[in-house]
């Protein structure tokens, strides 16, 4: 058991027997009131998001999780398929739970995952990742406006707005949380 005030982003909890991961938490002290915490919890198996309000002193059932490496293989439209790099077992993860990662994860890449009872609860994607530009429109000739941008598509299918000087085949660094272009990477 832990106190609700100890729950942080990424803390795994058991709610009515189901594992949930905290994806957001906010502290609230109503005037002349006890301390509270507002939590957003996500079920990795169903993608369901719960909003819970607890007093900071309330007990919550935390669960012991493990961090393990998994190699991302492919998605079949419903699940992401990961391979346990030690046992070579295929571990499917419903795409609805991590829709955000569909165009971020690279096939063949290894990701650190939070695991409970052989189930992947969380995928730890680095906050900045380098991608290769797979498709880029040509910059419009004569367009010299400072700050002008265009869209490109990365090898993972992510569409991102970049400065017009970025060309196909170049490498760019992306903030994976905001999906925004950060810089060109010289290889």
């Amino acid at each position: 058991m832990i106190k609700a005030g100890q729950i942080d982003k990424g803390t795994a909890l058991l709610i009515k027997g189901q594992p949930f991961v905290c994806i957001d938490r906010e502290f609230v002290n109503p005037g002349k009131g006890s301390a509270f915490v507002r939590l957003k919890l996500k079920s990795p198996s169903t993608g369901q998001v719960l909003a819970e309000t607890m007093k900071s002193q309330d007990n919550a059932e935390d669960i012991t999780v493990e961090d393990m490496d998994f190699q991302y293989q492919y998605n079949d439209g419903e699940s992401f398929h990961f391979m346990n790099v030690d046992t070579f077992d295929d571990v499917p993860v419903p795409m609805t739970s991590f829709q955000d990662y569909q165009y971020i994860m690279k096939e063949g890449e290894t990701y650190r995952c939070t695991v409970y009872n052989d189930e992947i609860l969380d995928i730890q994607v680095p906050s900045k990742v380098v991608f290769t530009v797979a498709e880029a429109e040509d910059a419009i000739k004569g367009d010299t406006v400072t700050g002008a941008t265009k869209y490109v598509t990365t090898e993972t299918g992510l569409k991102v707005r970049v400065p017009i000087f970025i060309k196909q085949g170049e490498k760019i660094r992306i903030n994976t949380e905001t999906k925004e272009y950060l810089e060109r990477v010289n290889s």
Partner: protein
Amino acid sequence: MDFDLVKARSLLYRNVRNFFDEKGYLEVETPILSPTLIPEPTIEDFATEFTNEFRASRQLYMVPSPEIFMKRILAEGSPSIYQISKCFRNAEQIGHLHNPEFTMLEYYTVGYDEKDSIALTEEMFCKTAIPGCPDGLKGGFEVVSMADALKKATGLDLEAIQDYATLRKQAVNLGLAIDPSVREGWDDTFNRIFVAFVEPALTGSRPVCLTGYPAQIECLAENDGMTKKRWELYWDGVEIANCYAEETDPLKVRDCFRKEYAALSAARSVSGSVIPDVDDKYWEIFRTFPKCSGVAIGMDRLLMTECKKKSIGDLILFPVSDIL
């Protein structure tokens, strides 16, 4: 360091001082270190010690608000007063709305009740706003009662949940996960509903004045049937101000102190946190205490909202969050 934000704070303080000076309020300065505090079970305190080689040492506390001293000034027969001062609250979680040290504007208007303070505060907000302040202020304050806000957010009738058993049942019906073994007061269970449903709905761009807090939430505001003559101001979902028609009855103040101190010391003898000394004669100043209304405003939060920032850490130079 963003010097535009440093300038914004300086300008807001200047505007606020001009506003109250023009209205004839007296600016006062009261101590940060106090030998006693007003007992407030939900506010944890910072304690320190005065030491001197030749005298007995003395425990002192850093004030969580200047109220304890400002009320003594009023009882001495002062005109309306205001102060901008540092306040300290321990053990609060560090977040985008909390820093253990923060700045409060507190003003007391002699002869006013809480309704008069709404008009005064609205005028003050409008006249002191810094350039670029959100447009929502142009429409003035929206005044909403707790009973109406509760009804709208949950369908519950404040009058119908006055007894604890009904309140608890309704909280569980609303889907709140309260461990059946948890024993708590009416105020705590009500606040669970408030924090989960009512407060998140107070997000309008116009400042919302939430009036008529339940009387079960203990404080030094006058009673008005089943509610207190108290309001809080929310702007853009952020709680910015708290106001009372101040309790003036010495015996009611004495009883409130005793009740709150009992609750505070019971809780803290378990948790081990600071139990501040309380002046058990403080209530006597209320024999000469005038009818008045007091308002406390979190200046870091007000600035944050006026500057359209999302964290008070953006407005506070060297916030504690930087070192934790």
